């Protein structure tokens, strides 16, 4: 087995857990696209739940960090996200400004702590 592909089992899991659950919605959109109102109540709820799931994932990476990120103290990770958010709002919702400021705060904080 090559290290590039790794475990074929993992690739099968990717299709079951990642590819199929995504493509179902795209293909449903393609087939039944005509008669759906984008502002219907059901879609408002669905969008809210989808947004909250994504927010949960963001929180999970920051609260229970993987790999190298775990070496950064909790308060510094939270502080970096907060600083990034302030920059994001000040720069008229610029994603780029938020990411750059968040990164600078975390990297310089970690560098300073040693």
């Amino acid at each position, binding site marked *: 087995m090559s290290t590039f592909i790794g475990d074929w089992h993992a*690739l099968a899991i*990717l299709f079951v857990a*990642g590819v199929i659950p995504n493509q179902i919605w795209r293909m449903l959109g393609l087939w039944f696209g005509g008669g759906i109102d984008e502002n219907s109540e059901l879609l408002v709820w669905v969008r809210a739940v989808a947004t909250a799931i994504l927010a949960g994932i963001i929180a999970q990476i920051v609260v229970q960090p993987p790999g*190298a990120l775990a070496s950064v103290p909790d308060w510094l990770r939270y502080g970096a996200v907060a600083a990034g958010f302030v920059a994001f709002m000040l720069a008229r919702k610029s994603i780029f400004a938020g*990411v750059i400021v968040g990164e600078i705060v975390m*990297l310089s904080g970690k560098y300073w702590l040693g």
Partner: protein
Amino acid sequence: MALPPLDSPQWQTSFRAFLWGARSIGATVLTLVLFATYLGIGALAHDSGFSLGWTLASTAFVWAGPAQIIVITTLGSGATVLQSAIAVTVSAIRLFPMVVSVLPMMRTEDTKRRHLILVAHLTAVTLWVECFRFLPQVPRNRRIAFIHGLGLGLVSVCLIANTIGYTLAANLTPLLAAGMLMLTPLAFLFSTARNCRELADVIALVLGLLLFPLAAMLNSGVDILVSGVVAGTIAYGVHRARAGIVRARA
């Protein structure tokens, strides 16, 4: 970069339109955001123990950043395939209204459904936003080719970013590796905040962030689903209550 005028001979062939689409990835700051996001996804996949081939396959075939991160973080932290699949299915529902709203922009009388399959696959939040910006400047009969160029161009950028992120995560100092992993939550937090259109979306985002640490204490294995459904439903409830008040006043 400016696109040629609608009646320009530049639009005479589909191939030219495809190239204009591919070149348009240079005309949007979102390409940079995608690059940073997929750099982070590459690093995240590396640190969660997935292979590079697996990571590239997930970008090419899933082509939805949030879903890829859900698969990587849930499977990486020991959730079952079924739990991941449910979380991804729910997160991917938002693709449905995107596809529904994008396809009418490029349909002509001769368009068959199969001509739109690749467009549907390439539809994700970035392409969806860019369709509204670019397509009015593209002749209708060349829009599918243009979007194929733009979409495949964006996928290529992300595959390169994945490879760089994955390779760097393996070789960087711990400080810089931590910085790369931090790209993912930052880029997603701000792009989600930017896409919030209604109060329900804002409440869902804030509550979703706050409720996850609580749900994680349950250690149920489906923490993400629990906090997501609870926060999303509360947000929807607020939306309903507010709509009710507006209606009562009117």
